[in-house]
């Protein structure tokens, strides 16, 4: 689906290359995490797939197209087969949820009746049923990201690119978003997600491609994020990270309660998925796609989120009692 063959990208003459001789092959229906430090080339990778940039060397193939030979008037057709989600959501502030999602279809000239049927479908899928008339600023961060995902997915792209989609969200809401992306992946959509969120990567156990200063340093299936401590230089105790003057570093996790709306949305999305599953017990496309994307060995995102949600419910029930 996406193939990088010895791809290099140098932005300014003489500067360090953003990508240096990168070869990666992502097959149809795969879920790939792109990890690495800031400036390691993750965003450049995604921009090359979108053909927002052209490689300085090597070849990029996306959905069977050789991007170096793709003439610029065919770029829109390439981008119609790719959905993109960003850390900062990039919703249009003056448009409602419905209009934001419909916008993506309007501007590629879809007929009105298609829009009228597809947009509510995809909103139900992401769990925003009934919130069509809200404006982005009336929504929580998680809900806004769901709108952005709905917009990216409404045209049923073959590929979904996500550039740190959980970067602005609390851990539980992030898991909800991951669950949604996983569900989208199960429909056969190839998902490539650039992230810094080690917890998510570790829990999802998907393929991980790690970039460092523009090169692929790791490409493993069922992988984890990597040790933070081994990445940071060993400096001993620091007054910034640890309480100054105290002895051993006391690790204490902060308990963050997600916004009720985000949990509600996740429940709605799950209900929608169950309804869809009940309607067609064995989805045809899933049946076709599954063999190419083998079931990961670890726990699926669904299980993880389920667990977190249950945990959260318990904590809240305990607090109320």
């Amino acid at each position: 689906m996406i193939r990088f063959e010895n791809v290099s990208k140098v932005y300014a003459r003489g500067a360090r290359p953003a990508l240096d001789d990168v070869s990666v092959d992502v097959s149809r229906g795969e879920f790939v995490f792109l990890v690495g430090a800031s400036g390691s080339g993750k965003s450049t990778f995604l921009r090359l797939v979108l053909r927002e940039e052209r490689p300085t060397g090597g070849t990029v193939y996306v959905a069977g197209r050789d991007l170096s030979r793709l003439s610029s008037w065919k770029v829109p057709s390439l981008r119609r087969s790719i959905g993109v989600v960003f850390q900062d959501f990039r919703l249009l502030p003056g448009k409602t949820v419905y209009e934001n999602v419909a916008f993506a279809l309007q501007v590629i000239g879809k007929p009105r009746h298609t829009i009228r049927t597809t947009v509510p479908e995809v909103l139900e899928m992401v769990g925003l049923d009934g919130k069509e008339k809200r404006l982005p600023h009336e929504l929580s961060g998680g809900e806004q990201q769901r709108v952005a995902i709905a917009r990216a997915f409404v045209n049923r792209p073959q590929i979904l690119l996500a550039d740190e989609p959980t970067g602005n969200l609390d851990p539980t809401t992030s898991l909800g978003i991951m669950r949604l992306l996983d569900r989208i992946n199960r429909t056969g959509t190839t998902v490539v997600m650039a992230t810094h969120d080690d917890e998510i990567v570790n829990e999802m156990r998907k393929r991980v491609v790690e970039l460092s200063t523009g090169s692929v340093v790791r490409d493993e299936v069922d992988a984890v994020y990597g040790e933070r401590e081994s990445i940071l230089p060993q400096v001993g105790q620091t007054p910034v990270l640890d309480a100054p003057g105290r002895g051993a570093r006391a690790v204490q996790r902060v308990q963050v309660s997600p916004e009720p709306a985000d949990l509600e949305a996740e429940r709605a999305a799950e209900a929608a998925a169950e309804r869809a599953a009940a309607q067609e017990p064995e989805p045809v496309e899933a049946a076709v796609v599954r063999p190419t994307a083998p079931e990961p060995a670890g726990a699926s995102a669904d299980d993880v989120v389920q667990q977190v949600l249950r945990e959260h419910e318990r904590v809240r029930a305990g607090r109320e009692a």
Partner: protein
Amino acid sequence: MRLQFVLTEVLQGLRRNLSMVISVVLVTFVSLTFVGAAALLQTQVTKLKGDWYDLVEVSVFLCPDGSTAPTCADGEATEEQIAGLENVIDTELSDVVATTYFESKADAFEAFAQLYPDGYQGTQLTEDDMQASFRLKLVDPEQYQVVDDVLEGRAGVEVVEDQREVFEPLFLALGRASLLAAGLAGVMLLAAVLLITTTIRLSAVSRRRETGIMRLVGASNLFVQLPFMLEGAIAALVGALLAVGGLWLAVQYLVTDWLQDSVDWVAYVDVGDVLLIAPLLIGIAVLLAVVSSVVTLNRYTRV
């Protein structure tokens, strides 16, 4: 769907940059009024030429008694010289000359006496003060030079005169006026192009978020750029329509109703001529808008 969507975008854009749009309209209006005025002046010149050149003749004055011209060294033109000249006109200039009329001294005196029965400025003239001449009506009055080349310098010919010269000062003045209008129009058109460019750029920058998403979801270049192009084109078009309206009013009230009443022996431009140049003005406006939007948009909304 697409059309409705594009129109909504256009309306939004127009509303958002209302003051810029108004300035585009006004600048286009003024510049195209100058273009139109130049065109109307040219039309007026053509009309006058068409009317008056039908009346003008080329006069070939023959040597009178006591002329100082070198070709008249032999004194007054003889019968033979006159016959010879007539022959030359009939043969060598048969393509150029439509009709030939010989005005003898007697004819000339008669015409003079009719025009000035009481003598010219107090002097009573006689037939001998008159000058014989050939009056040539040309097929095309602009071909005076050919006649001049053939006849000037021949024995018996004192001077060849083109009556068009009488009108030259007027045509020169009208020509310069239209040149001036065209020059001003050029400056204003430049201002219009720059202003449209700036307006479109402002519009494009203020809608960066939208266009960014449009590009990401795969909207075609045309679809992204069309609203901006239409915005510029609509503003320029309104300016052009105002210019046509302004010229129409000017011609109707200044020329047809006022000038025609006071000086009625001249053929003037009329509102019909304004309608004839209207497509030209509208075409210029649209061209202006399209050229400036293509230049700007390629820089600001590239895929």
